[in-house]
């Protein structure tokens, strides 16, 4: 959510004569047509998922066997599934989970990546070991390992936290822990560049504590690349979660996510193709819009384009 709040706040400032850096970025961002459309679509999807259930008041898990396998109609805009559950309500409910997984996993990956990146960029002693660790993680075959971990620890966590929370924690943890490496590398590079600048030396010589330097001087300067990683992180987390659900190893059926709906719908392909279409479209649109936003932010932050 960080990108939406960040880019939607500045326009008020943009009218003031002294342009802040954020306003500059926002101006650049607006110039990127794909990014603006992407942001609009993404905001629409988020709004639909969170506000939609108040308008379309059908419980996603309400079974109505008489209305099973229906094509889209007025009562059921997206049709119904083989148990007569309303697809629109299910897609909305699934979106809530998918987006929540995407955001939380992205935040976890971002936290880990920034931590590792800043530490290894800032401290020369930690640099070697941490970067070897990153290389090691990059060499792991991720999807197979994700499947294995999910399979092995599913029941334990389910018993500990209940079926839904347990799987949620597991999936978020697993995706977050296996996708921080690129962020770490990018952040490390940026920290190395920032660290050698003179204002850091000034801060050091004025007796500022190390953690204060990192917090006040280093982090704000590497924020831009963290933001780009964040958008890409949401997209890949949503795709990974859907892929896991699609392989039947994600959330259980009665707790829909977009990937799970697609997986369940695939068996009814010829009967009701819309069951596959809507969740798939939702995943694709979300990822596409987030990727466009990421592209636009990257362009906006690129110093070569800022000069224009």
């Amino acid at each position, binding site marked *: 959510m960080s990108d939406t709040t960040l880019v939607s706040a500045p326009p008020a400032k943009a009218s003031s004569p002294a342009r802040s850096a954020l306003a500059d970025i926002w101006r650049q961002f607006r110039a990127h047509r794909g990014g603006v459309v992407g942001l609009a679509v993404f905001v629409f999807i988020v709004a639909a998922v969170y506000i939609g259930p108040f308008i379309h008041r059908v419980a996603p898990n309400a079974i109505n066997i008489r209305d099973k396998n229906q094509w889209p109609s007025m009562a059921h805009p997206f049709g119904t599934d083989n148990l007569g559950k309303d697809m629109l309500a299910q897609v909305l409910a699934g979106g809530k989970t998918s987006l929540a997984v995407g955001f939380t996993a992205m935040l976890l990956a971002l936290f880990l990546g920034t931590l590792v990146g800043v530490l290894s960029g800032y401290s020369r002693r930690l640099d070697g070991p941490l970067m070897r660790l990153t290389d090691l993680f990059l060499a792991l075959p991720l999807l*197979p390992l994700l499947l294995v971990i999910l399979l*092995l620890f599913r029941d*334990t966590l389910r018993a500990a936290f209940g079926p839904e929370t347990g799987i949620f924690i597991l999936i978020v943890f697993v995706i977050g822990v296996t996708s921080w490496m690129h962020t770490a590398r990018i952040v490390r590079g940026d920290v190395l560049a920032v660290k050698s600048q003179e204002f850091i030396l000034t801060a050091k010589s004025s007796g500022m504590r190390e953690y204060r330097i990192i917090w006040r001087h280093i982090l704000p300067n590497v924020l831009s690349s963290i933001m780009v990683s964040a958008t890409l992180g949401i997209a890949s987390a949503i795709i990974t979660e859907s892929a896991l659900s699609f392989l039947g190893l994600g959330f259980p059926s009665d707790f829909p996510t977009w990937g799970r709906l*697609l997986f369940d719908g*695939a068996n009814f392909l*010829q009967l009701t193709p819309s069951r596959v279409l809507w969740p798939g479209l939702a*995943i*694709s649109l979300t990822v*596409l819009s987030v*990727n466009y936003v990421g592209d636009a932010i990257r362009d906006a932050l690129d110093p070569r384009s800022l000069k224009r």
Partner: protein
Amino acid sequence: MFTYTLRRLLFAIPTLLIISFVIFALLDLAPNDPTGDLPLTIPPEVREQIRASLGLEQPFFIRYLYWLQQFFINEPLNILERLTGWQFGDGHRMRVLSWATRSPVVDLIVQRLPQTLWVVGLAYLFGIMIAIPIGVISAYKQYSIFDQIGTFVSMVGYSVPTFFTGVLLIVVFSSWLQWFPSVYDTNLEVTDFSSFLAQMRQMVLPVAVLSLYNASQITRFVRASMLDNLHQDYVRTARAKGVRENAVLLVHVLRNSLIPVVTVIALGVPTIFSGAIITEQIFRVNGLGQLLIVAVQGADIPLVQTLTFIFAVLIVLFNLIADVLYGILDPRIRYE
């Protein structure tokens, strides 16, 4: 260059050892029991014997060492023996057995490999062949209609997950139009022209899905790399001295732009084996990815361990190849 390659190779050994340990430990920590599926009527002491026969009563570290010996010494020797017909030792080495099928894991993998290589490898090749021209034209005519459409399509291809494109293609081409089968039939033997045609027809959909995905990823790299090079001074020099535009584009710029692209392609090769798990699952191609899914679902630990570790070896290997290639192709890169 040679010493660099050697050093990287030496460094790959500890990396692989650590990865193998992680994989082994992860699967070993797992709270599951290979005898869990057996009937409850089996008395506990017999159950203990079954566990002992599976080698489970040994301490963790011993089992890990056994597994390493098995994986790095015994199985390669077995494969070599099979390939060359030579005999090493008495020929009665232990095999890593799959718990589910009780057959050697390596044999299972050898059975599944051709399908994966055919479908996924071909898709990767097609992807590269589509991506390079599109990327070149998009970059050369930046902001043209072609570029706009090309960039959009590659963005879509890169964002839409393969499990959606696959299902969509099945709906359109198998269910509505009935042009292509939706299930890959491995039993089909190519003997004459009609069976060859059938083989082609069943490969169209999975190859199309994967090619689209690969092509859109590579196109983005080709385009970006071409754009980086097109505005370099040497391009202006080449034009100024009267080199024809085609030669400037295809000889000077393309060759330089392909340097990073080649490494990206090399880095993507391991995904030929592991990344197509989902596509194989959709089209029921019984390749390596499908084998892994079946093994994971059946908690067939030896098979999962072996497959995952093979994928890891491939990743490490192709990382190395990519780095070395980069050094060879770009003389500006010097590894001290």
